[in-house]
């Protein structure tokens, strides 16, 4: 056990050269990709879901369903669309 742990700690560390160092250079905080501004869009569904005042109403109804029910399902749809937009916009960066 001791032997193994010692090996773990003294093994030479592989040096990795980043294939595209430019993409990190602009961010001092490190570990962030460019295009992360798109991620602000993701707050929209979260904020809507956290304020029931927005959807806690009966009107307008859709096929007999109060807004409370179909509205929240519509927000789930919106959530999918926004996440997909962010995914496509940030892909490959």
């Amino acid at each position: 056990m001791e032997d193994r742990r010692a090996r773990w700690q003294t093994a030479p560390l592989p040096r990795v050269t980043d294939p595209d160092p430019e993409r990190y250079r602009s961010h001092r905080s490190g570990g962030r990709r460019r295009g992360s501004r798109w991620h602000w869009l993701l707050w929209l569904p979260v904020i809507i879901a956290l304020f029931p005042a927005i959807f806690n109403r009966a009107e307008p109804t859709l096929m007999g369903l109060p807004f409370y029910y179909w509205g929240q399902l519509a927000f789930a749809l919106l959530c999918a669309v926004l996440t997909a937009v962010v995914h496509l916009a940030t892909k490959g960066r």
Partner: protein
Amino acid sequence: MGDLLGNLDGHEVQLAIFGFCFLLVTVMGFAAGRWRPTQDVHTLEEWGLGGRAFGNWATFFLLSGDVYTAYTFVAVPTLVYGVGAAGFFPVSFLVIVYPIVFVVLSRFWSVSHVHGFVTPAEFVRARFGSRALALAVAITGILATMPYIALQLVGLEAVFKVLGLPPGWPLTIAFVVLALYTFNSGLRAPALISIVKDTLVLWTVLAILLVVFTRDGGWASVIKTAGARFAETPSQSDGLLLPGSGQLNYVTLALGSALALFLYPHTMTAALAARNRSTLRRNLAVMPLYTLTLGVVMLAGFAALLDGVTPIGGDRNTVVPLWFDKAFPDWAAGLAFAAIGVGAMVPAAIMSIAAANLFTRDIYKEYIRPDATPRQETQVSKFASLTVKFGAVLVILVLDTQFAIDLQLIGGVFVMQTLPAVALGLYTNWFHRWALIGGWILGLLTGLVMLYQVPQIGGADGRTVLREHFGGSAWPLSHLGFDTTATIYVGVVALAANILVAAVLTPVLRGLGVPDGVDRTDPRDYVADEGDARVKRMTEILDGTPPQAAEYVPLPGTEPTGSRPTLGQRWPTTSARRQR
């Protein structure tokens, strides 16, 4: 189909179809072991993460199997049936969860692939350099997962009750079979049978829509009846819309459930099995669509009210299966029951694998046999998954269902307490390791005490106290002296206490000179993707090279200044590592 099965009575038809689906799933479960096999199946990466090579479809089915479980499909419509609007919170919770996991889980995927982590606890050990903290995360994860597996049985049991099967042996057989093919095929089994589950769920949703739409009045009459029913009851907490006093609990419950969901080890397991970052993110973007199916099943709770379904023996979980039995043709009801049945198997398999991985990597390998070979690791994990599943069956058969539900309630609050270490840890290593442990302990205690204080209220007038303690997760604010009937979700308060303590203790411990752990990760590990130089190291990890942080040559202008670690950033130097 009706003619074909003409000689059988209703329940026999349902049972025949249910049995057929069960058999199909069993065959697929065993065959899954041969699905895209690799040369060496005796590594934990293979058995416990499907070789980390799942593409789009497999990842989708795995994630959907994780999130939309049998218990969700049984218990949530029951809530809607019981209280109306307040029971609809899972839709809000699922709206919140995907944007969060989309961002957070991709970071977790990247760092795990660079370092070869299989569990969140391994990440915590490397991030904060603390074995104790990792053990805390592992134990919390295992404890929270076990009752969750038991709850899947509750869903299955409800279906068996409606089918008229006796309690006990059918449940045991179903789980023994599940345990065997999980043992054999690992994470590939749930991924493959989840295809059957999703097909059946989709069918069930269509059937619900068809049944309601072809009726006189459609949804309008369903909603009208439900509204009238809620108006009759003296309880203030039910209704077609949220009552003012229920809003705080609704929001905190949705937020808390969202945070708990992605901290559950099985969610992480499914995410780690994705082949690359893009696959994971693409699937998480599509996943909210699945919420629509859950929404429809929840509305079936209202339809059950209209049809005057009364639960068998007071077991409210039978409401939805009973409604299927009543409103669907027998063969269609059989398919719907199979959807719930297979829907119980998929998450139970993933959860038991996740718990087993935690045990193997963070307890067995860390404390019992550090020199275990990958083959031994896999064996241990396989047996741990068996143990976990039999434990769940025992809880349901020997103890009782209510006990499992109580434990699950506590488990959800507990697993949230790993958020500062696991989720915030993905962004910053600012927290001191002992401060995180302090916060974790206080969070657990706060959660437990608050849950103890929650009474279960019900009865004919809606005000009788049925049970004094552990009656739910909605903590009455009147405990604080406010004159209100409003309640708040326990987990969120416990988590706030946890984070507060961790944030206060961190500067205190640093001031006292208590050493920080060494962070073996690097900021760039968190955005790595398949094809990056760093993730290529996966082959080395699979070959048995001990995981270690790769060394970087920091780019000019990115080195931190000063000796103190700054928020979200620490560059361990080679010399610092060697000193350890």
